[in-house]
């Protein structure tokens, strides 16, 4: 099954190696997405070009309606673009069948959701084994245990979601995203349902995974504070990328206090502030 998949997907070892000799994980060219709602056509994406390299830690930002969620769905192989090309880890995803897309999601993408999306009344171990089951992989319990240990939950293998804190539940979800060794982890507001302390913990795990294991991480968020912990910010507006820049000095999770209410309020009142590289927008 796997070999068949590789042959058809045309994975190449000579996949484009670009800037700084790094391999591109995500290559998007001229991607558009149009929804038809009755007689009205909604252009959610109007031609997006984007390349994300192996080992990058990127956040995609944008207000509601900017096409942020649509882009995430396409990046996550949950949806197909109306036109344009999307290569994920050398595989042209924009032409795949439903079943092949499922395989791409299984092998190449690890999802982390805002609301964790854990199965109820299922142990942490079983949650993490889920992608392995659909992959038909062997050595499941060993791999799941290793993944849970890497997020600091080695002692909580048999805990149910109801017995875990929000931060711990999200860590189970991260372990689940990691377990198939995907090309990238796609996280949708991963700290959105967490308090500041748990949020910082989760951010720390992502930073560690990115720094120490070179895992590519893509955050989709509207929270500039979260985005400041990543290395690169991509800003979407009305279905197009309006800004794409590296963050000079990313924050280190847990080392900085979130700006006080007063500061945030002041920022809202005084400046148009989108997060990320402030110079770009001032």
């Amino acid at each position, binding site marked *: 099954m796997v070999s068949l998949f590789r042959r058809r997907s045309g994975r190449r070892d000579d996949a484009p190696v670009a800037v700084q000799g790094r391999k591109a994980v995500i290559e998007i060219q001229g991607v558009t997405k149009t929804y038809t709602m009755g007689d009205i056509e909604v252009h959610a994406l109007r031609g997006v070009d984007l390349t994300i390299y192996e080992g990058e830690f990127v956040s995609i930002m944008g207000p509601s309606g900017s096409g942020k969620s649509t882009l995430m769905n396409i990046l996550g192989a949950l949806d197909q673009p109306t036109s344009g090309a999307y290569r994920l880890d050398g595989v042209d995803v924009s032409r795949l069948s439903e079943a092949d897309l499922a395989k791409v999601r299984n092998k190449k993408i690890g999802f982390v959701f805002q609301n964790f999306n854990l*199965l109820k009344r299922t142990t942490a171990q079983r949650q993490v084994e889920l992608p392995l089951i659909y992959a038909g992989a062997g050595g499941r319990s060993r791999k799941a245990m290793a993944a849970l240990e890497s997020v600091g939950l080695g002692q909580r293998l048999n805990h149910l979601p109801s017995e875990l804190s929000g931060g711990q539940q999200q860590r189970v979800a991260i372990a689940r995203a990691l377990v198939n060794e995907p090309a990238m982890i796609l996280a949708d507001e991963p700290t959105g349902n967490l308090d500041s302390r748990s949020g910082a913990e989760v951010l720390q795990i992502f930073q560690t995974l990115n720094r120490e294991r070179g895992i590519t991480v893509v955050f989709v968020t509207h929270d500039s504070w979260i985005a400041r912990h990543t290395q690169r910010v991509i800003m979407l507006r009305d279905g197009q990328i309006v800004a794409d820049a590296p963050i000079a000095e990313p924050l280190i999770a847990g080392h900085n206090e979130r700006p006080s209410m007063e500061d945030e309020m002041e920022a809202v009142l005084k400046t148009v502030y989108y997060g990320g590289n402030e110079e770009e927008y001032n």
Partner: protein
Amino acid sequence: MNLFESLRIAIDSLLINRLRAALTTLGIIIGVGAVIGLVSLGRGVEDYIASEFQSLGSNVLFVFSSPPTSSTRAGVQPMTTKEGEALRSRAVAPSIRTLAMETLVGGIVAAGSNAIQLSVSGVTPNFIAVRSWTIRDGAWISEEDNDRAARVIVLGTTVVERLFGDKAINPVGRTVTVNERVFTVIGVLEEQGGGIGFIGDQNEVAFMPILTAQTRMGSARTRDGGYRVDVLHIQALDEQSMDSATQEVETFLSDAHGVQFQGEQDFTIINQADLLSSLGAITGILTVFLSLLAGISLLVGGIGIMNIMLVSVTERTREIGLRKAVGARGGDILLQFLIESVILSLLGGALGVALGWLIITIGALLVPDLRLSITTDAVVLATFVSSFIGVFFGLYPASRAARMRPIDALRFE
């Protein structure tokens, strides 16, 4: 992903939602239980009725002094003892083994202050052999009793109970009156099974010698110099000779009664097979009716499964979305939901068999005469039907789950 994994995922999901799973199976449990219980009940009643008629005695023919319903004959010439005796002859009727005669005497039987209206039978002594009955107390009517037209009587247990207050009493030697003539009780018949009585209570009977009935109870002689006989009880040589025995009786009596054309008979010949087949038709309808009722409850159970599976698909939309996000294909989801519903309905089928067994056990306690049992075909049918229900009613919800788009499913609140 292989079938074993799908099975494990389905079982996990069912265990996670125990209450819902239990409620879903309830419909099937009741449906299958009803099928097994009712079908067995129908069969039990059929068997009971059949055995009731078989208890009349094997290879038995009855000849009544009444025209068949299709007869065009106006008057009835009664059968006589002379005709009965002639039929006993091998030359006339080689297929008849035994022939007993019965003359009915309607009247009031009394003992002390207790009196009952009863049709007392005057019978030949070989009557008890033809009917395969046995005596509980005392003795049956002897040839000698008959020859001297003795005023003796043999009672059934119901008559003993109504005359003496308790069916266990042994009334041998006591006297009763039949139409104010005094008789001595010489015997009591063993209680006959049944009593629900499609053919009447076989214990509500009293017998005296046929000659007593014919000579002491006011019967006049017939034209041929014999006495009136109301019923001939004939035992054929074996089951194969039933038809020839019927033919011989028909020929002889038609000749004796001057019947020239078919349809002019003033007598009716009935055999067990006729009775059984006409009653079989009735009980067959009963069984079909009960099966129909049970089938409807199974259908309702199946719709219940579909209903709850559909609710379950909606309720688990996010789960489906997540499974698809981590790599489940439509086929994996379809298989999971299908296996879930098949497991539920097979489980329901198994528990339904248990429920059916319970119904049958209780039924057997309440009506001991019905021999009820779970038949293999009912169990096989229940298993087949419940797995069919699982697939049939599970397919639609499962395909709905499989067709969900992961983004819609994940966004679902």
